């Protein structure tokens, strides 16, 4: 029998745990040429900002071994165009819309949350407090417990009660658990992790940085172990907080790895650039991975690696 893949995103039930990762699927329209966007758990949109934004100059991308650097800089048409065009389109296709928001100030985040709460059909809000391609790199909100908390508090205050708010965290911090705690205390219904790691590449022919923006966010399978570690640490500290895991998931096996670490949903990002049908494929593969292990329900394996450790410990007698 096919495993039950249903999962909960806050108070919302999703048919399955496979989501797109913010910034890797635009607003879903392009992917609809290759997959049925209503069949995956949800579309997480590219981060929406208040005003239109042109982004960073090109070159914006550098391929690295098992990864890529991007320095897009949150190019997008702004919240008005999103609400008028992209959100209605997603809903018309029967897709669930998790809207990622980004701002330069706490007030911008709060206003975005209010605008989305006034619109019908937003399944959840993912607060991108960790994009490395903003003016003050290394000083993103997600790098400071107080800043992260104040954004989430402001967003939560302006978001309709029935829309869950997820905070997207950066792995480029000393203690991700401290940031996670701060976000949850501020009211976050869940956590998304991880955003890209800040990286850089230099062209040894031209002897210049490859990216026009000099540094960029590293994504792809190269960072998956970092994602597993972050999810593990946060799940260990905050076992009841739902986690959307992301970071280099290319296959159903990879998705299962993040789920075992504690994620109850998994976003697929860079894999989409490699394979536009990746979300549908990974969903199918995850289903097969669970079926092969005779697991009836996805919820049985969320964070299971932690319990396995406890079992192994008691078995060996090592504290």
């Amino acid at each position, binding site marked *: 029998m096919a495993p039950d893949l249903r999962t909960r995103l806050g108070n919302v039930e999703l048919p399955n745990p496979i989501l797109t990762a913010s910034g*890797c*699927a*635009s*607003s879903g*329209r*392009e*992917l*609809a*040429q*290759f*997959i*049925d966007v209503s*069949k995956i758990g949800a579309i997480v949109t*590219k981060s929406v900002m208040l*005003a*239109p*934004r*042109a*982004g*960073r*100059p*090109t*070159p*914006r*991308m550098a*391929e690295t*071994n*098992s*990864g*890529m650097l*991007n320095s*897009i800089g949150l*190019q*997008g*048409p*702004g919240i*008005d*165009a999103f609400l*008028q*065009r*992209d959100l*209605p*389109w997603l809903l*018309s*296709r029967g897709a669930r819309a998790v809207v990622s928001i980004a701002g330069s100030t706490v007030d911008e985040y709060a206003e975005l949350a209010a605008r989305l709460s006034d619109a019908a059909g937003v399944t959840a809000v993912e607060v991108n407090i960790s994009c490395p391609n903003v003016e003050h790199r290394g000083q993103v909100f997600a790098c400071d417990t107080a800043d992260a908390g104040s954004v989430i508090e402001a967003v939560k205050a302006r978001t309709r009660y029935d829309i869950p708010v997820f905070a997207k965290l950066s792995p480029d911090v000393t203690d991700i658990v401290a940031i996670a705690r701060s976000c949850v205390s501020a009211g976050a219904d869940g956590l998304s992790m991880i955003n890209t790691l800040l990286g850089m590449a230099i*062209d040894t*022919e*031209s002897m210049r940085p*490859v990216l*026009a923006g000099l540094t960029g966010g590293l994504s792809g*399978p190269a960072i998956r172990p970092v994602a597993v570690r972050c999810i593990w640490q946060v799940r260990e500290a905050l076992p009841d907080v739902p986690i959307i895991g992301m970071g280099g998931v290319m296959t159903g096996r990879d998705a299962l790895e993040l789920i075992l670490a504690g994620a109850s949903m998994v976003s697929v990002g860079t*894999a*989409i*650039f*490699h*394979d*536009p*049908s990746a979300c*549908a*494929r990974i969903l199918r593969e995850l289903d097969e991975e669970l079926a092969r292990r005779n697991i009836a329900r996805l919820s049985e394996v969320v964070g299971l690696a932690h319990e396995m450790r406890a079992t192994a410990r008691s078995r060996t007698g090592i504290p």
Partner: protein
Amino acid sequence: MTAAEPESESGPLHVRGTVLTVRRVDAYHAITIVAPGIAARFKPGQFVAVAVGGPDTSMLLRRAFSIHDVRPDHGGTVEFVFAVHGRGTRWLAERRARDVLDLTGPLGRPFPVPRDPVSCLLVGGGYGSAPLFALADRLRERRCSVDFLLGAASGDRVFGALTARRTGRSATITTVDGSLGVRGIVTDMLGQVIHEARTDVIYACGPMAMLRQVTALARRYDIPVQVAVEESMACGIGVCMTCVLPVVGTDGITRMVRTCVDGPVFRGERVRWDDVGTIPFDAFGAPGWEPRPRRLPRSAAGDPPGEPGAGQEATGQATNGYAAGQAGAGPAETGLAGPGAAGMNSRKAERQEGRQQRRQAAGPGPGQPGPRQGPKAVSQPRQQGNQGRRQGHGA
């Protein structure tokens, strides 16, 4: 095919195609793949995005290649031409018959084709000439005359010189080292060829520096020019926002548009060549850019496209392209009906009224603002000498 139900008959497909042949063509490689769906949907100017390195590859980004030719054998084959200048293209060159390739396509807006029989000049640099031969066939079907002007560093790097000589009304070849044709670069000969061929329309594909010069010369002669640009891409389907360049829209506003879905074919004069590699200060959404009320959705005259992120708007969809059932329509048909083609037809009409008059009728086509000569960006780092780093159509 791994895709679910494709949304339309003209959109791109994601397929696994069997390699038929890989062969050396002078300095380049040509690879032919059995991919019936892509062959059936192809229009000249479109490209495929190919996954390289096989399963579990460490090379995550697809390589984009202009389609050189499609043929009906084996149900439908697709051929593209590439040069080896990286790990990915080296892997491709090592493919053999019966290997399987993962490819998506046909992608991008094709070359608009004039409705009337006009005189067309096809300008290619290096293996940038590859997509021009399918275009030439399409143009001849429309009883257009086709002249070729091809150039490269050396004779072995002029792709398709023989075909051009055999099939073109005229074919002019330039090489930097003088090993084939005239010594020099294509733009040295452009003026002469335009005069001799009485060119009405120019199509160009090749390095950005060449396209920029061809556009400048075409403007001097007041001839519409359609260029297929090279920008490095990651996904090829419009989601990664990597391949953007500044292009002036029909409303006069510069936007950072995606080469993969809003191009790769643009009207030459709409590309802000001086500002490629920057965010012009007056671009939509640039730092300090003032948001102002915009009418949404925009009109159907979608060349170039709507704002970044608006995939289907880019293809010149009818006003309410957001309704279910329309949004999946691919770029192919609409590209042909776009103002690019219309512009050419108005040129044709002008031509019939006499060349002298056409010279005087300088300036933009009906309803189109003049090309914007905006001041250069000041707030962003200028990327000079980028060409060497750009992957172009695949690296």
